């Protein structure tokens, strides 16, 4: 087959128009040949014999007449064993290997194999003559603590028969492990690696299920009040400095899932570096291995080419879906989806499309919805349950949640964790605003009790607002107690010290234990006569609660701390 060739006719930033004379597919990958480098791009519009490319690299030096090679392939990622603990850019280029090759800087036009070239110990589960279809497991290899399923490529349609499969043993990741054929006699040779276009959701499962099982993050305000479900979606909008990234890092460390994929999309490089240096040192409490072994980082930071930023979230979610299809629970954290939306906006502007609000393209909402819809809890063909959970941060301009990206996101997610500048300024972390935020999922604590605690939080806030007008003098003791109860929920339960070696992660049992005590305090009526009595009493309770928060659950002091707290408040309960 001869290569399809075109020629550059115009250049505008990272959009390049190419004249062609054969058939061109929308969203296929093309390479512009500049001097001796090949710049990767994607066909995003075709009009007559002109294809518009969004180029994933800087277009300095591109000239009219330069040759363009169409690949015929959609933008794809490589799937196979060895993805875990890798650090990729938005196009699945492994960054450490790139650094070995090119040094300090990201040289354009250098594309390396995403899957490391090495041997894996393959154990077949099918035999000659078995019938297989897309997504079926041919065999397994051990990847760290996981059993990595080697599957029939997802784009294979219909029933196929296994002609041959290799015996158990060590094989190179790209060598042939099986041959399958269909009824018409067409043969396919399969290795452990295959490709999948990133913008297409992987649908090789039996059915989608309701996300009804909580995904524990060990962050109290989330697990108790604003839960996230396995297979659910949530977003975290907040102004700069409110702690979005810290919150995501905490989640990526503590979340009760098998695999975490971090998509650092258009944010600071320094933050990724912290993860890169920190994670190999941290231990995953679930497996006892390094956290990095369950992590993939897709890193397209703010100074890297904008178009690749657009691709990076799709790359990340495709990897997530791939591991989901092995029966694993995967969490995808995207930081920040606003930068991804901005990348779409830049391209839309170059295409001279009619702009929507704040110059974002009209298809912003449908793209965001499409992306979050790739999350979900599913039942696979072999009956196992698996999930992809997506959490995205949003960086609204000026911290104003009315802007298009936040609004489009809120519509499609199942939980909304809005960070507030007021809370972060007051050093109340995590700075999730408990009154503005919401969740549609079930948490780890009895929903009825949570609702009652929440209503006290709301009423306490109302009393606080009222007190600002009428002063403390004008507030009744009963109202003042409600106010203090609300403050106690906030200070002792919602706030959590992420730098404290114990408090930074509260496992479910501990949360339940703590919540029971808190709930009992909230529901009790106290024999307190004056407001200053109330203040003194609640200061004492809060102090005892905070002390208890800092005690490790496996130490003997834990029960003592609890006992001390209970004694303090029981002493004043009205009999």
């Amino acid at each position, binding site marked *: 087959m001869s290569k399809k060739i075109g020629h550059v006719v115009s250049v505008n930033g990272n959009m390049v128009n190419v004249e062609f004379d054969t058939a061109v597919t929308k969203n296929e990958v093309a390479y512009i040949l500049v001097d001796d480098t090949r710049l990767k791009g994607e066909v995003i519009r075709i009009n007559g014999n002109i294809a518009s490319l969004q180029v994933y690299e800087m277009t300095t030096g591109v000239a009219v007449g330069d040759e363009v090679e169409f690949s015929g392939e959609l933008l794809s990622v490589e799937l196979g064993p060895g993805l875990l603990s890798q*650090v990729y850019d938005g196009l699945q280029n492994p960054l450490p290997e790139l650094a070995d090759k*090119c040094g300090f800087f990201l040289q354009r036009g250098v594309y390396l194999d995403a899957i490391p070239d090495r041997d894996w110990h393959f154990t077949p589960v099918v035999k000659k003559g078995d019938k297989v279809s897309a997504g079926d497991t041919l065999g397994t290899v051990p990847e760290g603590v996981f059993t990595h399923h080697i599957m029939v490529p997802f784009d294979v349609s219909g029933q196929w028969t296994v002609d041959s499969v290799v015996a158990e043993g060590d094989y190179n990741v790209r060598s042939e492990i099986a041959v399958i054929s269909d009824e018409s006699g067409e043969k396919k040779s399969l290795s452990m690696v295959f490709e999948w276009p990133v913008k297409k959701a992987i649908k090789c499962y039996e059915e989608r299920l309701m996300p009804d099982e909580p995904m524990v993050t060990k962050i109290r305000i989330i697990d108790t009040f604003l839960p996230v479900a396995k297979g659910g979606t949530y977003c975290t909008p907040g102004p700069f400095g409110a702690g979005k990234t810290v919150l995501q890092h905490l989640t990526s460390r503590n979340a009760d899932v098998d695999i975490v994929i971090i998509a650092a999309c258009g944010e600071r490089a320094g933050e990724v570096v912290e993860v890169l240096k920190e994670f190999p040192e941290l231990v995953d409490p679930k497996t006892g291995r390094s956290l990095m072994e369950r992590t993939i980082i897709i890193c397209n930071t*703010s100074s890297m080419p*904008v178009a690749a930023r657009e691709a990076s979230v799709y790359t990340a979610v495709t990897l997530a879906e791939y591991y989901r299809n092995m029966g694993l629970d995967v969490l995808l954290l995207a930081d920040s989806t606003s930068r991804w939306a901005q990348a779409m906006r830049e391209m839309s*502007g170059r295409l001279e499309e009619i702009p929507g609000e704040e110059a974002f393209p009209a298809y912003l909402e449908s793209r965001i919805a499409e992306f979050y819809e790739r999350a979900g809890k599913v039942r696979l063909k072999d009956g196992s349950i698996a999930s992809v959970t997506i959490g995205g941060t949003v960086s609204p*301009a000026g911290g104003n949640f009315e802007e298009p990206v936040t609004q489009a996101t809120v519509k499609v997610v199942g939980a909304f964790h809005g960070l507030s500048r007021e809370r972060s300024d007051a050093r109340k972390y995590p700075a999730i605003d408990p009154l503005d935020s919401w969740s549609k999922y079930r948490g780890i604590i009895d929903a009825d009790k949570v609702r009652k605690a929440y209503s006290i939080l709301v009423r306490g806030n109302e009393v606080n607002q009222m007190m600002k007008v009428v002063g403390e003098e004008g507030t009744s003791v009963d109202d003042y107690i409600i106010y203090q109860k609300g403050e106690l929920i906030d200070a002792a339960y919602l706030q959590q010290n992420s730098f404290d070696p114990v408090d930074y992660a509260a496992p479910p049992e501990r949360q339940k234990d703590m919540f029971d005590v808190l709930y009992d305090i909230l529901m009790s009526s106290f024999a307190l006569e004056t407001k200053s009595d109330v203040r003194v009493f609640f200061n004492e309770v809060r102090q005892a609660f905070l002390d208890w928060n800092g005690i490790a659950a496996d130490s003997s002091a834990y029960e003592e701390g609890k006992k001390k707290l209970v004694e303090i408040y029981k002493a004043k309960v009205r009999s």
Partner: protein
Amino acid sequence: MQKIYTKIESIVGNVITVRATGVKNSDLAEVTTKTGKSYANVIKLDRDLVSLQVFSGTQGISTGDSVRFLGYPLRVSYSDALMGRVFDGAGRPRDNGPELNDNMIDIAGPSVNPAKRIVPKRMIRTGIPMIDMFNTLVESQKLPIFSVSGEPYNELLARIALQAEVDLIVLGGMGLKYDDYLYFRNTLEKGGAMSRTIMFVHTASDPTVECTLVPDLALAVAERFALDGKRVLCLLTDMTNYCDAQKEMAITMDQVPSNRGYPGDLYSTLAARYEKAVDFEGAGSLTILGVTTMPGDDVTHPVPDNTGYITEGQYYLRNGHIEPFGSLSRLKQQVNADTRADHRALMDAMIKLYAAYKDTIEKKSMGFMMSDWDEKLLKYGQLFESELMDLSVNISLEDALDLGWKILSQCFEKNETGLKSELIEQYWPGE
């Protein structure tokens, strides 16, 4: 073969178009007019129609003027001969010195591979207590100074240029008033710091296009020095002028504006510049300190807002001093544990007491009675402001910490400070 084109098709804003072939994107060209020569660079190609932005502006350009393509993008000379020199936004000498044409390097080069970055670990001492002690500047950090017109931000930058313990200062001035430029030059010359300084200055009366080139020139040079092992501090003032120049260029090019007229790629444009800040393993480092004036003192304005999402903290310069509240160096935790045992604790305690002082001031202004404790706070606040916050204070970090203890001991009893007893025993000034 360098062909000369003598028919300019259109002249709009600072952009001209000519019909030419074989031209590459971002290439440099020379436009010769009756009044002289100017550089221009290619910003758009559409078949044989080439759009160029003319550095010196299009005023006085005739459709019959000649355009010659040079076949390479904008470059800047890199050598030790740059030290002590002043250039304009197109890289031409502004100081009557010779033009430098050897060892030309590309500007706006590729970004650093995140896998090659390291966690920053060295502080930059500036001799300014509000920075060194309370919000330490760290090598490879990018920090803006958020301020408003009229505040002494250029004076602050000049002080930092004089006092900062780095090998090299690269100053990028954008839309500077001529007086400010002279102020920088004179101050650095008088302070003896000119020999370790390179300046790229665009003044308010210079053509707009040159304003958009200043950060790229300054950062390209700074990056090369950092690669050669130098610890470089790049000072950029004022980034809001830079963004306004970008806005002007975008509107001329018929780009759809996104927010208050600024182009949709403002975030990426700023990030590509600020992210040049880096610590090269085994070589030097590049630290960026920029000034962002907030129009109308509004931090939600697109320029400070986008900047805040990119940078690692910010300094607020208000009422002539760096505000202890709101100012934040996100990287200070990386270094202030290793300076002196009392650094972190003393920093926190002093800020808490200063916050209490602010509350007392508010109470006082509402006419409440002042208690003994309030009087102590008032005394403390005044000492804190005059001895530590004043911008003219120039002392080492250790002296600043000692001074902090002295101020505390002058105002409070030991147990009123909220500091740990062991620290108090070690550092409380002798009685």
